[in-house]
């Protein structure tokens, strides 16, 4: 423990009653890793939000071709050093098209974060609801839901996601949703949430089972509270800590799944910017223009690392016993 512990000699010092969430917040505030990782995540989020601003500053769009930056003699590779890095194109330009890599990176962050966050929200809502029902009712209901959970987890998720994307997309398109990203992105969110909720449901279920028989729930039940009241007013408020930790640790895995799906060709469709797509498109050029591969790769690494570290810090702050 750093810093001086102030022992006040006066007996008048007030004894403060501090709530568990307040204690957790104070632990988190003292954690340097939490600050740094939060900083990384915040920079990426701000960058994603500000992406149209960058477009305005740079007087060009992420999808605009710049053929004058390419060397036609060398198979349309960027002119100049390091993949065409210049004052106009901060991260260089894309081989063959000359699109600005910095803008594609910034807009790509927005796509990745939006899809990952949407999938997280859907998976969390479904997972929490199913976990609550499963844990609270127990018995047959629990057995049935646990079996569904087991089956979902038995699916080879990446493979299945790749396979089902065209099928779901076809269904959306035939019901009037326009072709392209308008139907692809919802499909990605659905698929990712479908394979994400069991992990959240499992944790919530375990917590509910241990809370269900506690005295305060018993008391509410004795007072004649309805089931909905017991579940949502008595049990759920006690679950926000484990739910928060699970969410924090799930976001990075959704981000990487999104990039992996796009990398494998079942993700965001051109010309929309996306980190997974940038990595995929950089494959033919990785040895002649390494920077093109490194920019989305490092971006993904930093963002995932930031979320992972921040998730760990939140967990340690909420549950000091788990800190090792």
């Amino acid at each position: 423990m750093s810093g001086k512990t102030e022992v006040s000699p006066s007996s008048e010092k007030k004894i403060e009653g501090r709530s568990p969430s307040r204690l957790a917040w104070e632990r988190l505030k003292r954690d340097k890793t939490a600050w740094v990782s939060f900083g990384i995540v915040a920079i990426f989020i701000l960058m994603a939000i500000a992406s149209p601003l960058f477009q305005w500053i740079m007087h060009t769009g992420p999808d605009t071709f710049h053929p004058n930056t390419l060397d036609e003699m060398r198979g349309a590779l960027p002119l100049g050093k390091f993949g065409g890095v210049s004052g106009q194109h901060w991260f260089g330009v894309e081989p063959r098209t000359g699109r600005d890599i910095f803008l594609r990176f910034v807009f790509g962050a927005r796509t990745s974060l939006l899809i990952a966050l949407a999938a997280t929200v859907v998976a969390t809502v479904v997972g929490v609801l199913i976990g609550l029902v499963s844990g609270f009712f127990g018995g047959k209901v629990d057995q049935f839901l646990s079996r569904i959970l087991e089956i979902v987890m038995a699916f080879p998720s990446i493979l299945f996601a790749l396979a089902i994307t065209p099928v779901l997309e076809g269904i959306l398109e035939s019901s009037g949703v326009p072709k392209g990203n308008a139907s692809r992105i919802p499909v990605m969110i659905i698929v990712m949430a479908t394979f994400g909720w069991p992990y959240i449901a499992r944790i919530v279920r375990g917590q509910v089972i241990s809370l269900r028989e506690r005295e305060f729930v018993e008391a509410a039940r004795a007072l004649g509270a309805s089931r909905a009241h017991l579940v949502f007013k008595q049990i759920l408020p006690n679950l926000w800590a484990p739910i928060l930790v699970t969410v924090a640790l799930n976001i990075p895995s959704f981000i990487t799944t999104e990039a992996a799906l796009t990398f494998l060709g079942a993700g965001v469709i051109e010309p929309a910017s996306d980190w997974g797509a940038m990595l995929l498109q950089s494959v033919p050029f990785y040895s002649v223009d390494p920077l093109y591969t490194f920019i989305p790769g490092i971006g993904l690494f930093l963002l995932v690392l930031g979320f992972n570290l921040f998730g760990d810090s939140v967990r340690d702050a909420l549950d000091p016993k788990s800190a090792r």
Partner: protein
Amino acid sequence: MRYLVRRLVGGGIVLTIVSAVVFGIFYILPADPARLACGKSCTPELMAKIRHTLEIDQPIVVQYERFVKGIFVGRDYLKGTTAQIHCPAPCLGYSYQTDEPVTFLIRDRLPATLSIAFGASILWLLVGLSSGIISALRRGTWIDKTAQAVALGGASLQIYFVGLVLQLIFVDKLQIMRSPGYVSPLQDPKEWFLEMLLPWITLAFLLSAIYARLTRAGMLEIMSEDYIRTARAKGLKKSTINFKHVLRAAITPIVTVFGLDLGQLLGGAVITEYVFNIPGLGRLATDAVSNVDLPVIVGTVMFAAFFIVTANIVVDLLYSRLDPKVRMR
């Protein structure tokens, strides 16, 4: 024994449901499954053949029943006409695009996937466990801190990025590694090893990071248990305590994770095979998806699910062996 039977029956039920769901999603949900089986380069003749042989006119239950029957006893498509297709058991469907039963395609691609999975898993277990053990025993030293930092970084990296970077460094720039690929180890074991090396290292690098973290955390937890203090008080040798008592107890949860990871990998190291262009099950599946070869998609998904369910059962059985506290119920 009764436990084993119960687990097998449970696994069988899960597989049946998975197969029904997969079958339903791919043969019933789409407006035109024959179109999906025909793929991108579809000819009217092929389309007509598929329409006839897929038996789409039959009720769904009959279609599914024939599919399941095919897995156990094989199947003849299009009985009683000239173009008869025989698909021997276990029949997982017939690829009209390559004109081969799906099982044959899987059989051809399995060795490459097995090579990746086993080589990489040996490597990541060795590296992950040993660095985890060293970290736990030398807790707080620079070795531990370095190992932890590497593990944290490794756990946040992606195969599709690291694979390209390692290939750039070792194959293109330094030229000390062979370009990844697959040759049969029976044909040329040396070439097999050299071409597999980069995929193994890539996969192992990322996964050993996770295993190092697990091992370290597990060992530290066990080391704070009372019975370890007792063992120390009895005057047992340090190495006996660390390896016979601590590691023995810490390794059980790792066995579980390992079994599940291996099961997932045997169904196709999808991303690894895609990055390094290795003709394994994962590549078969991704190619089938991009060519829209419906029967191959269904077959590979089911095959992969089979490995995952089997791995689950094996892990449970091993767990009850390794951990005397787990009673076989």
